[in-house]
Every structure is written in C-alpha cells, then in structure tokens.
C-alpha cells in the first residue's frame, strides 16, 4: 500500500496557438487558448495508477491553478485517482517556478505522509522542468528526474531507469521520493466510463460558490456538505488555508520575469549545389564547420 501524490497542471494547448494570445507583460492570455491536461502529467498519473494497481493504496492529485483547473482534477478522477486537491488563490497568479514550488511543497507537507510524488518532467507552456525538482528540494527528499521505467518497488526502496543523454541509468533510492517522468514512459489509460459518470459532478469550492452565486436559495456551506457527503467535493486550498507567506507567493514571490516571447520559425532559405565529389564534400564540411553546425 502506497500513498502517491501526483502533481498536475492545466496548460494552454501550445500546439494550437492562434491569434493574439501573448500579453504585453510576456505572459500568455490563458483564457484565449483551449486548456488541456499537461501531457507528461497524465503520464505521471498513469505511473501512480500502476503502483496502485499492483500494490494498492491511494492517489491524491494536486494542482495549483485558476478555478477552471478543476477540469483536469476531474479528468484525474475519471482515470482512477482517489482524490483531487485544487490549490487556488488570486494571490498565486503570476507565479514562477520558485513561487509555485513553494506553494506546492507547503500543500504537500500539509498532506502528511506519502511514499511517492509523481510529476511530469515539464509543462508544455513553460518548458522549465524546474517545478518538480524545486518542490523536492524544499521537501528535502530524494528525487529521480527523467524517469523512464519503474523496475522494482520493494518495501521502502525504488529501483528505476532514468533517461540520460545517449542512454539510461538505473538508480535506486529510498521512499519517499519525487520522480518526474518523461512522455514515453507509459501510455496513460483512457477514462473509465463508470468513473466519468460517477465523478462528472465533482466540484471545487470555487465552483460551488459560483453555483450559489446565481441562486439565492443555495448556501455554500450546505452545498459543500452535500458534495462532501456524495464524495464529489474537490478539496480546495487557498493561501490562508495553507498559512503561506504572501511575499513568497504569486508575482511577489517570483524573481523570474518574462522579458519577451517570440515565435521563431526555422525555415530554409538559400540553396547551394555541392558536387558529389571528394572536393565537394570537403567544401560541405568546411561550410558546416563555419556555421558551427559541425565541430
């Protein structure tokens, strides 16, 4: 029996960037892009599910994000997670990896005991691959990044294969551990139809507040209890709930500022004919070295 925490993120679908979605401050206007489940985080959840399939236990999924990030927590429930936690506060907005990892590590601390923390290697919006390792550093536990395959879990020991340049290495460490997984590690399972039907109505506190806003007959506390009783409440944590230092959250706690974002298109331009002779090939090598492509 293992308790796994999976860190997930809702990201803009960067594969389909259209129109003017970049803002003046260099950040992305998320509302203008379709939001999706970060692909590698889904792989991380699959890893956790396999641990659970094999050894039993529990999976808690956490995300820090705006209220609509509940969408991906529901998706986690559809795949088999036991519980979703939404960490959301206006004061978290504009967080870089440092501020994000601070909030996440505090939320994880609050969870109490756990054996594994799974996270995707990186999110497709920032591509930093920093949040996993930074969270881990703050928690003071071992980490395995670029995890490709779990080879063995035995008692409190994990043996795993991690991808390195030009090959892989096999490492072993004690639990609890944080691992970040790469995209091809395992193929995430599809949603279970039964779970989709059972959890489609799961709601976070913000969503319940929104429900109550439009109807004076509904009271938030009462609704919350109802959702909790039906196991449809997505636990929601704010800055106050976590008793966080406001200076370390959101924009205030983020030394990284995006200076500029541009779309770089690598396109072929000039064309040069090289004779298929020894001299021709020599020239080609020289040219490539000149352009720092070779050497």
């Amino acid at each position, binding site marked *: 029996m293992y308790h796994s925490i999976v860190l997930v993120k809702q990201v803009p679908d960067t594969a389909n960037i259209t129109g003017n979605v970049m803002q003046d401050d260099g950040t992305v206007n998320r509302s203008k892009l379709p939001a*999706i489940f970060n692909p590698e985080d889904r792989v991380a959840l699959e890893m956790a599910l396999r641990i659970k399939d094999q050894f039993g236990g529990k999976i808690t999924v956490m995300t820090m994000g705006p209220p609509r990030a509940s969408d991906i927590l529901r998706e986690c429930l*559809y795949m088999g997670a036991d519980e979703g936690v939404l960490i959301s506060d206006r004061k978290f907005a504009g967080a870089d990896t440092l501020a994000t990892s601070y909030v996440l590590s505090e939320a994880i601390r609050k969870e109490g005991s756990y054996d594994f923390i799974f996270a995707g290697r990186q999110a497709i919006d920032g591509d930093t691959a920093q949040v996993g390792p930074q969270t881990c550093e703050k928690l003071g536990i071992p980490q395995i990044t670029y995890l490709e395959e779990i080879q063995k879990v035995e008692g409190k020991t994990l043996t795993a294969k991690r991808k390195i340049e030009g090959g892989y290495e096999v490492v072993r460490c004690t639990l609890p551990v944080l691992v970040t997984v790469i995209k091809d590690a395992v193929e995430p*399972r*599809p*949603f*279970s*139809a*039964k*779970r*989709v*039907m*059972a959890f*489609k109505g799961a709601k976070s506190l913000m969503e319940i507040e929104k429900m109550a806003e439009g109807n004076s007959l509904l009271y938030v506390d009462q609704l919350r209890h109802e959702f909790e009783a039906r196991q449809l409440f997505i636990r929601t944590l704010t800055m106050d709930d976590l008793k966080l230092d406001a200076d370390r959250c959101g924009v205030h706690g983020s030394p990284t500022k995006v200076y500029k974002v541009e779309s770089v298109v690598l396109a072929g331009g000039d064309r040069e004919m090289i004779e298929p002779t020894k001299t021709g090939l020599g020239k080609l090598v020289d040219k490539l070295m000149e352009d720092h492509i070779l050497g």
Partner: protein
Amino acid sequence: MANFFLENPDLQFHFNRFKLEEIVGIAEDDYEQSRTYRYAPVNYADAIENYRKVLEVVGELAANRIAPRAADVDHEGAQWHDGKVSYAAGTQKNLEELSQADLMGMILPRKYGGLNFPFTMYMMATEMISRADASLMNIFGLQDIGDTIRKFGNEAQREEFLPGFCTGEYTGAMALTEPDAGSDLQAVKLQAYQNAEGKWFLKGMKRFITNGNGDVLVVLARSESGTKDGRGLSIFACYGRDGVVVRRIENKLGIHGSPTCELQFNDVPAQLVGSRKFGLIKYTIDLMYRARMGVSAQALGISQAAYEEALVYAKDRVQFGKSIYTFPAVSNMLIEMRVTLEMNRSLFYRAAQVVDRKEKIEELIEKRKEEGKPVTELVQDLRQVTAMAGLMTPLSKYILTESANKITYDALQIHGGTGYMKEFRVERLARDARITNIYEGTSQLQIVALYGSVINDIMRAEFEKNEAREYRGGLTQLAASLKEIRGLFIDCLRYVNEKKDKTYQEVAAKDLVELYGYLVIGYLLLDEAEENDRKVFIANRYILTSLASARRNAESIKSGVFTDLLHADSILQV
C-alpha cells in the same frame, strides 16, 4: 484533442434530438438504480449527460488511439498459428483500452458490471469505433452475445458469463453458419446431444465465424435429431477452451483485424440457452435485429471515414492550378456523399430508437407479468413497434451498407490514382466496406425481409398523415415530390400484385423496396428540415434525387422488363 463525437456536428444533431424518456425510464427502473450504483443516473437529464460524457470518451478513444492503429491492424491482420489465433498488436491494444474504459459491456445490466446503456447509444459508439477501425467493430460488437445470454439464458448463466463480458475478459462469438448453411440457417447440422446425465455436448463444424476464437461462443445447433428444418435447432453457450478447435482463419479482402474462423467442435460441453427448438425461430432472429443494426453502424462509420478522406484530399489536391474541390464534378460527388451520409444517419438512428423501444417494451412486459400486472396495452404496443423494427432494421441494413460501398467507391475515385495505392486510407475503407452488404444477411435477403412490410404498406397511415401536413416555405414543394413518389409506389404495387407472377414479384421487389425507402427517409428528412435550416439542403437534394430514381424504379417495374427471366437459360447460355 480530436474527437469523433464532439467534432461531428451531425452526430451532435441526432444526439440532441433523441427522445428517449420512455426507454431510459424503463431501463433505469424509474431511476431506482441510482440508489445502488454511483454511476447510475438520478433522472432523465442526468442520464443524457452520462451518455454524452461517455460518448465523448468513445469519440476521444476512437480518434486518438484506435484510428491511428488501423493501418497497422489492417497490414498485420489477425494471425493463425498451430490452432491458436492472435489479434494484431493494435487490435489487442484497442481491446485492452476499451476494457479499461468500461465499454465492453455497454448494454449489459449494472448488476453484472455493465453500463446499462440504451441500444441507441451503443449504436452511436459502434459508429465511431467503426469509423476508426471497421474491423474492431466485429469484436466490440460481440457484446451482443452477452446480451443474448442476458435475454434468453437463466440467472445462473447470466451470473456465469456476463461479468466476463463486461470486464473485457471474455470476447464472444456467434457461431451460426456452416459450410452448407450460410444464408439458409435452417440447414444447420452441428449436432447437440445429451449424455446419460442430461449434459449437453456439441459436435460438428462451423464456418465463417467472426472471432470464433472468442472465449464464449453462442452456438446454433441441432438438438432434435432426425429433424431437418429450423424447428429442430436450439442455442447453446460454451467455452472456446473446452475443445473448440480453430482449424484455420480466412484470408479476406478486408476487415483484416477480425479473425474469421473455421471451427471444429469435438464433443464440447455446452449449456442450453433458453428453450429447446426456439434456437432459430426465436433467438437467432432476435439476435439478428441487433447484429444487422451493428453492421449498419459499421457501414456508417466506414462511410464517414471515407467521406472525410475524400474531402481533405479534394481540398489539398491541386490540378490545373486549382484545388479539385472547386471542380463541379468533384464538389457534386462530395455533396452526394455528404447527403447520403446524413440521410443514412437519419434512417439509422430512427431505426435504433425503434429497436431500443421494442426491447424495452419486451422487458417491461416481462417485469409486469412477474408482478402480476396487466400487460394488454403493452402487448398491443409491442406488436406495432415490432412491425416497425421489422421494416426499419432491414431497410437500414440494405441502404446503409449499399451506401458505404458507393461512398467508398466515390471517395477512392476522388483520390484518382493515389486512392488505388495502399498508402492512402481510402483503399482500406473500400475493402472494408465490401463485406457489410454481404454478412448478417445479404442485401438481396434484406429485400426479402422487407417485402412483406412493403407490400402491406405498413406505414400507410403515417404517410397519409404526413401528406395532409403543412410544411414551411419551400418544403411544400418537397412534400409534393414525396406525394408523387407515393403515387408511383401505389401504382407499381398494384401492377405487381395484378401480375400474379411470383418470379416477377421477386425481381421487382428491389424496386418496390427502394420506392418505399425514399418515402420513409424523405419524411424523416423533411421533419429535420422543419427544425434546422441547413437540413433543408439535405432534404432537397435527397428528395429530388429520389424522385428521379423513383421514376426509374417505376419504369423498370412497369416496362415488364423482368419477364425475360423466363428465358434465363437462353440468355445465360454457355
């Protein structure tokens, strides 16, 4: 992410028009089941939301996982080695994921692990899966076997077999045909005998059995020795592992992912399902309704896939400095395909709702009988809906499978020479479509099945009501065209009846059935056009084309051309 449900406006259109209150109410015991099962709906709106969400799951699975594997599945195919059948790697993966997604028992009761979905929703799922990989439908669709056991088996059998279907642990097969019993199932010979303790065993051969390597087989066998017709047949359930030998699998034109097996039963222990002697005349015929609908859904999925391929190709392909999409000859073909596709869907989902209603009313009657409540009204209702199912099911099968052949043919044509090459998906689609109007009853047999309903004009009252209706704007003109088609039909029917020549009637049946089909579909499309402006185009193209075809049908009936069948031997002289 691509999604065959969310990104298909026509499926959305039909989904949003479904009127399933009665069907869902019966299936959910007035929503009592939600007390026992977390995933059971609490009311009708919740049920619809469940169906929508689950169809989204199917659409996602079909588009992003199953479809990308289809070319490899086709290339690799199912394999036979030393009596063992293995699926293509992609098929195996597809089945695993369908099981993980809880989709292998969509129509089976929750009690055994199923989703308890209406047949109509199952058909929508089948259409999308077939669009992704037609050959997968043959295995996915065999959850019908489980449903046959549910309907006609006893509780012990349900408890024994159904959970395995729901989890995907079992795949099934329906073993009906034999070397000498294809379309003519009355000729089935496979022997079922009892030992001294009354246990049943099966002995004999079956041929052309889709997924005959499956774990659980439902077998049509001769339980009454000495009999020669359908009344001596019963159905049995047995395990493949208990001595069913797969002698070979067929090397087919299409649906390569689906193994078609020749089976040898060497004294295989089996259980009688339902009552003796009702195997063909009741159970198999009942199973056929659903199987024919399944094949119609398969044809529809293939048609959708082929249309999509043709549309994308036509837009991309530039000749004479222009996209070929802009050439009238090509855009006209695309419109024809699209209109056919949409009229197929209108017919099919109406038929699905009719079959759904028939099954649910049957269930309700059973339940009421057990409770000792009166059923007279329901029985009356059942008679009507059964007659409608008897028309709509073969009509769908006939029209949709012939359409799939035409649509894949045209889609390949739009591709020109490249379409003939294996690199393009349309080549596979054309091969896969070809079986749909053959198996589960050929088109010719669908016409035979339809003939009774057609010559008895069973929809007369409804047609007459429609003729008296007022339609908006230009639809009046189309209604007038349908009235003209009906005139032609009545005229031809009289002509054929008066001819009193059985051979002539049998040949003219095709034209008569087609005439009737234009009316059934034409009015469905008019209804849709009343609600939706875009559908006016569909109704217009379909009804005007049908009027022209109807005149041709009438002409061929009344020209007396078929009298030359008397001289068949001379014409076909060697």
